């Protein structure tokens, strides 16, 4: 009787510890207190892109659209983690950063067709390269939504209306999630 009661109490304490540890982990993760996987790669990537984006801003301000496009083009083969690295699959931030660069490049090319113009098919291939295979798995973010929206715009220009609508729907779905988070006050 007595040993059974003690076993029951120990079991409850153990379950409490496990539950508490789990809740603490979830709480820290929600508060962004757990560092992303391989922080060194993410920090290097974030800092490099911050510098590159500022350089592109400066070139655009000076009217050097060709230079801005060239800077963004140079990033296509640049700093992205390898496909088989943990970061590329696991860390949504790196994917969002890549989508940001590709989105900015394609937007700039669409707005300035007179500068080193590319055919629509060429721009579509840039978008698909930027989206990669992990676009559907990444957490909702506006950069992925913009890339899908640009894909829709390009499909529309090619007269591929069904494909355009599908791409627009993906973008709207992501933005809907983000808006819901904003309205709901979710982190």
């Amino acid at each position, binding site marked *: 009787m007595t040993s059974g009661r003690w076993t029951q109490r120990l079991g409850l304490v153990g379950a409490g510890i496990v539950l508490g540890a789990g809740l603490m982990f979830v709480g820290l993760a929600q508060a*962004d*207190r757990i*560092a*992303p996987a391989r*922080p*060194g790669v*993410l*920090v290097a990537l*974030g*800092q490099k892109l911050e510098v590159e984006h500022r350089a592109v801003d400066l070139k655009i301000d000076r009217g050097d659209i060709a230079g801005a496009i060239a800077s963004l083009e140079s990033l296509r083969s640049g700093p992205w983690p390898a496909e088989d690295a943990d970061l590329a699959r696991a860390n949504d*931030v790196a994917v*969002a*950063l890549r989508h940001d660069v590709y989105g900015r490049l394609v937007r700039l090319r669409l707005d300035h067709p007179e500068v080193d113009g590319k055919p629509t098919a060429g721009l579509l291939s840039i978008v698909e390269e930027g989206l990669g295979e992990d676009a559907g798995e990444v957490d909702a*973010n*506006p*950069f992925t*939504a*913009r890339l899908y*929206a*640009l894909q*829709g*715009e390009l499909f*529309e220009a090619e007269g591929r*209306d069904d494909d355009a*609508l599908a791409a*627009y729907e993906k*973008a*709207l779905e992501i*933005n809907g999630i*983000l*808006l819901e988070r*904003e*309205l709901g*006050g979710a982190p």
Partner: protein
Amino acid sequence: MSDEKPGVLDPQWEDALRAGQAAEGERGSVESELAVLHLLRHARGPQPLEPDALDAVWSELEPEIAGQGGFTTWWQRLFDWRVGVGVAVASAAAAVIFFAASPAQGPLPPPDADAVAQAPALDPTLSATLQTQFDLLEPAARAQIDGDVAAGRGALRTELLASIAAPGTVGGAP
């Protein structure tokens, strides 16, 4: 830890926008920002249109619906979704302007058909709507990414300090 940001529906956003406009001598316009706030509020708590306004919207939609029975050619379907999106965006803009212009309480004035027809200030294409949404969502997303990078930098600093403090790595002095 407890510094709470006001929600997007908090009236103090509108007060701040109005105050900023007044502080700059009424230069510039905050109407587009206010329209977005009203749109968000409407999305949170949709308000029904008055019968007259609803009739006006239906009068726009009916010609598009009429004659759509049976087989539709590819160009008719193409016309459909683009015009549908345009009408939807125009209706949303009209609703926002209609409710923004009306007082919070009391009887609503009869809708001005001309104003409703001229109301849509938004580009009725989906790509433009998505670009507008991106412009709204981008700053918060960039701040979030900056936070993630800063968290990574903090983790690196912690790792470095831990490696310095580890036994066997400290010292050098006799």
